[in-house]
């Protein structure tokens, strides 16, 4: 049936750095050599800290843990673009974003041992507690963005989520609100192709996740999520637009969850090892390293040195995390509300006397 076209939309994909380490000069964002090196160090630190967490878990020194293996570029590229005054609303798999903000790694380890204190963001770092209830936190980012806009603060709220999270109603309510109020909000989706055992194709019939922005009249873009430079460039552009009053952006980073969903999961039950192997070739660290080597900014020796330094740093972090005294039962009560009810006071007394 013929009809009149009344609206047209296009979704673009940005990619700058290819797997062989070649960049598209035209698209290359402005980054000094030292910034490029910093990016690579953060990628490496993220991977090593993640591996360390997996090791600790295997040894029973950490609880269930969700690995970020393979997603380092999506996390570091976006995290690196943020400014100190921006606020971060993470999912639960954004180790790299936390490290970009200098969030103490020992807190993260402690959180995954089951210690709430691990989510007490130090003053000066504006990271919200990791969100376990998938997709529900984008609204908080939108709310903070609205508050900042009201106050005239130079702040952008950045929310992180996965492909699965785009199916939740709250995600859409948030994007719609962001569009209506033209909020300084950047929503960064790590499309790692899987939500536990549910593949990207079974999650939604849309060709891209980026196009979900169209429903809410906001900008959407897809990025090669294993390309740290493209993720950085797209995030920086979105942040700048948000900061200048030009409203929200939704960024889909196409990447891959190289590991099991968490340490409690066994991905071999539901996915093809060949698919994993295929993505192995697109490793985000390798391609950045190749680029740096081609630019003569990096050598084998540098790599050895970096790994050594980071290994030592990680040992110190683990030591700090593990030497912390366990939380006290009193904290359960102290942080439920700003003051205790008379019943809570009695309960606290019983709890401290009786013990578990």
């Amino acid at each position, binding site marked *: 049936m013929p009809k009149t076209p009344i609206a047209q939309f296009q979704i673009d994909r940005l990619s700058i750095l290819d797997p062989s380490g070649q960049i598209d000069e035209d698209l290359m964002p402005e980054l000094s050599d030292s910034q490029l090196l910093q990016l690579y160090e953060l990628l490496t630190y993220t991977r090593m800290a993640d591996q360390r967490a997996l090791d600790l878990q295997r040894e029973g020194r950490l609880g269930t843990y969700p690995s970020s293996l393979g997603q380092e570029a999506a996390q570091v590229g976006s995290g690196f673009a943020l400014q100190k005054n921006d606020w971060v609303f993470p999912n639960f798999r954004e180790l790299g974003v936390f490290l970009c903000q200098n969030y103490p790694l020992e807190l993260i380890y402690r959180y995954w041992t089951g210690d709430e204190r691990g989510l007490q963001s130090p003053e000066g770092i504006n990271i919200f507690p990791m969100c376990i209830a998938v997709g529900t936190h984008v609204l908080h980012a939108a*709310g903070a963005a609205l508050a900042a806009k009201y106050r005239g603060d130079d702040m952008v709220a950045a929310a992180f989520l996965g492909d699965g999270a785009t199916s939740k109603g709250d995600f859409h309510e948030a994007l719609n609100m962001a569009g209506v109020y033209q909020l300084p909000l950047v929503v960064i989706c790590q499309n790692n192709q899987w939500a536990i055992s549910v593949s990207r194709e079974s999650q939604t019939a849309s060709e891209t996740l980026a196009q979900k922005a169209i429903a809410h009249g906001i900008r959407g873009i897809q990025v090669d999520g294993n390309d740290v430079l493209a993720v950085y460039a797209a995030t920086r552009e979105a942040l700048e637009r948000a900061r200048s009053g030009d409203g929200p952006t939704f960024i889909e980073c196409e990447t891959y969850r190289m590991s099991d969903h968490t340490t409690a999961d066994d991905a071999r039950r539901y996915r093809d090892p060949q698919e994993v192997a295929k993505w192995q070739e697109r490793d985000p660290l390798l391609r950045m390293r190749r680029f740096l080597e081609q630019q003569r900014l990096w050598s084998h020796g540098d790599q050895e040195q970096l790994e050594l330094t980071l290994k030592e740093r990680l040992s110190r972090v683990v030591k700090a995390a593990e030497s912390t005294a366990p939380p006290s039962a009193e904290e359960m009560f102290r942080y439920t509300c700003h003051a205790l009810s008379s019943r809570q006071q009695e309960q606290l007394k019983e709890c401290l006397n009786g013990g578990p």
Partner: protein
Amino acid sequence: MAVLNLVQAINEGLRQALEEDERVLLLGEDIGKDGGVFRATDGLYEVFGEQRVLDTPLAESGIVGLAVGMAAYGLRPVAEIQFLGFLYSAVDQIFTHAARIRARSRGRYSCPLVVRTPYGGGVKAPELHEESSEALFCHMPGIKVVVPSTPSNAKGLLLAAIDDPDPVLYLEPTRLYRLLKEEVPDEPYRTPLGKARIARAGHQLTIIAWGSMLEVVLRAAKDYDAEIIDLMTLSPFDRETLLESARKTGRVLIVHEAAKTGGFGAELAATIAEEAIMSLRAPIRRVTGYDVVPPLPLLEDHNLPSTERIVAAIEDLLRY
């Protein structure tokens, strides 16, 4: 002092909160130009503008979630949900986030948020416009639940709720909006949360009620020497006042509109049965809505506690 009805008192409270503290923002469906479907925000959009009185899209989880972020950032949002029946889709944002952000962040963030919503029956309104599911929210550590019963405590409790550093669900008995008028002090004042009010002192039995039921109880019990307690804050409730009265009278009747099973009356009865049972001379009685899906207008009078049912329960208790 002006003579105000309950919704006018709320309007005045909101206006004064907006005047006093620029961190206060209102948001909700139709609260702007329209002034709210019950006119609770009447005139505020005109005075404070769309920066502070925000009409929102039709999305209750969105409204509460947005407000959680605003509150954590340092504002003091007051969200209106058009009717309590539409808050169910925001339960996740309330339970998972508003109530827990202080605990989850170990105090780094908090949620000084007020969610206001009309609630309760007796107004012959359509489906979902007369819910009285307050008990659901009283089982969630981290939030407070407040129900005013008169214009003056409505204003005082609202201002106290806005001041409170934690999330408060503020339930406005729709039937009372325009039922009674009284003098309400002009200046802003606070009625402390967590404290019940002896609406009438008495000796023979204790009757506990809140919101719109208080008015029914006062009518039903007028010929009895009953001590009538207006709970005002349901969570955390004023245990001491209840227990003291129960110990004094030895007979307790609890009245609420919500279905009996699992209603908030259960917690009050259980508390008394745990801490004051040795002073009781009679069973603890509850007169409540029945365990049925809330009926539409033609049947609602059959469901809501009537003065007759309350009198029958009083008579029964006095026989012990």
